[in-house]
């Protein structure tokens, strides 16, 4: 069993099938890779985040206008596919894997990283065409969800161990005393980030207003 399978086993997926999980784990590892700066989107459980988004109201376009007639429209007119995000992920991953099988004789997740990048660039630019949905639309949705999963509160299933926040120095839930620090110009405010999940699970205490007290990081952290 590969690495990606181990990650997959850690969660009960609500929508994604195992081949889809493998595709996404592999794609996320290219979009935000683990590298010398630390773990990436796959390690941050962004695949699970996407799964959870797909079973949410957003994944079903619960708050979107969904009546026809359907026309392609101009780029300025925005999203015009009759498919929901659930359906887009399902058909686009299937069709992207069909492309990979034809082109390389293997599904996306077992291609070399160079081949994977080639495919991702092809989807992004629209050079690789998918049958049922615009490849550009799928790619932009995937990239958007990847960034969301890397930077949103871990209570949504991604940003595990606040990997995304630690990378950029974002403190998460704000503390009450920012005003004191704002006079200190050009001094980075470096703290252990606090998530809503931390507070929900009792790992971080809050004051009477509900704000956490941030723990400053030392120079070597």
């Amino acid at each position, binding site marked *: 069993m590969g690495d990606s399978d181990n990650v997959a086993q850690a969660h009960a997926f609500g929508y994604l099938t195992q081949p889809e999980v493998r595709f996404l784990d592999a794609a996320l590892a290219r979009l935000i890779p683990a590298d010398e700066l630390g773990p990436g989107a796959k390690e941050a459980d962004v695949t699970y985040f996407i799964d959870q988004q797909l079973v949410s109201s957003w994944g079903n376009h619960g708050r979107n206008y969904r009546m026809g007639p359907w026309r392609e429209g101009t780029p300025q007119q925005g999203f015009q596919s009759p498919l929901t995000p659930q359906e887009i992920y399902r058909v686009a991953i299937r069709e992207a894997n069909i492309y990979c099988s034809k082109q390389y004789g293997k599904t996306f997740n077992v291609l070399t990283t160079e081949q994977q990048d080639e495919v991702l660039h092809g989807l992004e630019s629209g050079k690789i065409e998918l049958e049922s949905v615009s490849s550009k639309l799928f790619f932009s949705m995937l*990239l958007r969800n990847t960034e969301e999963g890397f930077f949103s509160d871990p209570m949504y299933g991604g940003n595990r161990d606040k990997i995304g926040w630690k990378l950029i120095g974002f403190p998460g839930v704000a503390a009450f005393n920012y005003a004191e620090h704002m006079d200190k110009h050009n001094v980075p405010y470096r703290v252990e980030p606090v998530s809503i999940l931390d507070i929900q699970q009792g790992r971080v205490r809050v004051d009477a207003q509900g704000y956490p007290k941030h723990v400053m990081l030392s120079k070597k952290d």
Partner: protein
Amino acid sequence: MASTKLKAVDAVVVGSGVAGSIACKELAETGLQVVCLERGRMLDANHDFAMPYAHDELKFWRHSDLIQNLSRETLTFRNAMNETALPMREIGSFKPGECVGGAGVHWGGQTYRFLPWDFEPRSRTLERYGKGQISEDCTSQDWGITYDELEPYYDQFEHLYGVGGKAGNLNGEIQPGGNPFEGPRSREFPNPPKEPTFAGLLFAKAAESLGYKPFPTPSSAMTRPYTNPYRLMLSQCVNGGYCGHFACAMGARGTPLTTVLPALLKHKNFELRPLSNVIKVNLDSDKKRAVGVTYVDARGREIEQPADLVILASYTFNNTRLMLLSGIGKPYDPVSNQGVVGRNYSYQTMGGVSLFFDDKVFNRFMGGGGLGTIVDEYNGDNFDHTGLGFIGGAFLAVHSAGNLPIRSHPVPPGTPHWGSGWKKAVAHYYNRALLISVHGACQSYRSNYLDLDPTYRDAHGLPLLRVTFDFQENDHKMQIYTADKAAEIGKAMGPSKMKVSPAIEKYSIVPYQSTHNNGGAVMGADPATSAVNKYLQSWDVSNVFVIGASAFPQNSANSPTGTVGTLACWAADSLKDNYLKRPGALV
């Protein structure tokens, strides 16, 4: 469907946002029986915006239920008349509210007055530059009201919303530290401005070196604990970020929920009905008088609420759509340039200059609504437009409103969109970048207008509003000119990398730009070119008033909320002092 007819009331107000809440309160104070119909749900600040849940960027920036639910109603959009308009299927360019308090719950808090010039752009341009300065298809026009007439109401609104700032012009005398270009104020702001941030000081220093006069952004985020004229207390802003697009967990920003509603709900002669979506203003047989409104309640029942006075105070789009659906005023026809309802739809041009530093950090997640530093030298007609080929301008500003990472992770030009290169740039620059906004005006044109869509319908089977809009030559020229000025300031701030982005050439409904949609039911002195008179009263149906940014004949560079609230104060005063004493046409 047979509708239930309720007992008549004196006044029905459609919408509980910035405009509607003030109209309700001012009318309720006179003892009239007032009903407010709000399409969205009731909010309870203690639960809806409790900490830590209020600090959830994915929810409030991306998926908020405070924003219009498009599954029931949206609008259609096209750039030009020769295209087929298609529905806006997901939220993008702007965020109309759908909750008690409306878009006023999630607004950003920058609280400007428009410049005196903004109210008379056409006549003042003709006077200063002659006829050639305005292109023939530009329909920008005077408001039919002047800054001086509105000044007392700007003052009233600023005191209601507890605006912090520094006056630049007190009764004609220029004040150091404020905006020297602003119209005269009758008194200081109710609250002092916020202390400038590190980013704001860098900007101010660079601007001063170029001869400009920077000043603090007027803001409705409280700079100290404040009690407003309705005796409501607001707490002090703690600069926690999570401000615009969010509901403040501290109740420290002026919104309908913090400044008006708790006092309004105490009036026994007032009733708020949430989840009540008005679909029509009912007129009498000769269409000269409104007899009430019809709305659909939370259970889907159609209900008729008779009233002597109808005030439309919903969002720009809905004000115009309700007029069109109800047959109030003549719909605009862009081909003949006749008719008024739907005329002069405008937006906001949003450009910017991104600066990237290697030797400075800004703690960009800190801050709050309207915490910023501005220069106004290129706003309105504050500079000589001779030979420039455009009218209007932009303010240039650095704001520290709390930059959260899903929305804001700027990278220098040339950075890959993903992969290790992207990751490295985001990690390095998330806290080392800032933006000079080029917040520009938007003129009105014959080809930019609102009407009813011939194809697409809402959940009730009623036609959606159709938006036909694109930025025009004046907007482009103005943006390029002002973005260039912003770039000069940017350069003087000493960044290691810089990117100049004037507003997008072709308007797109996809990326978020601003919830600053204007026009469609514009005010004016001439019934041939305006839907409502200077008192916001329909020219055609005198017991219907239409309040909101729908009344703006074109947009100023400054954000609209201050003027929306001011128009509500002005209209309410006209109603109280004039209309209620002698109902009928005020002009």
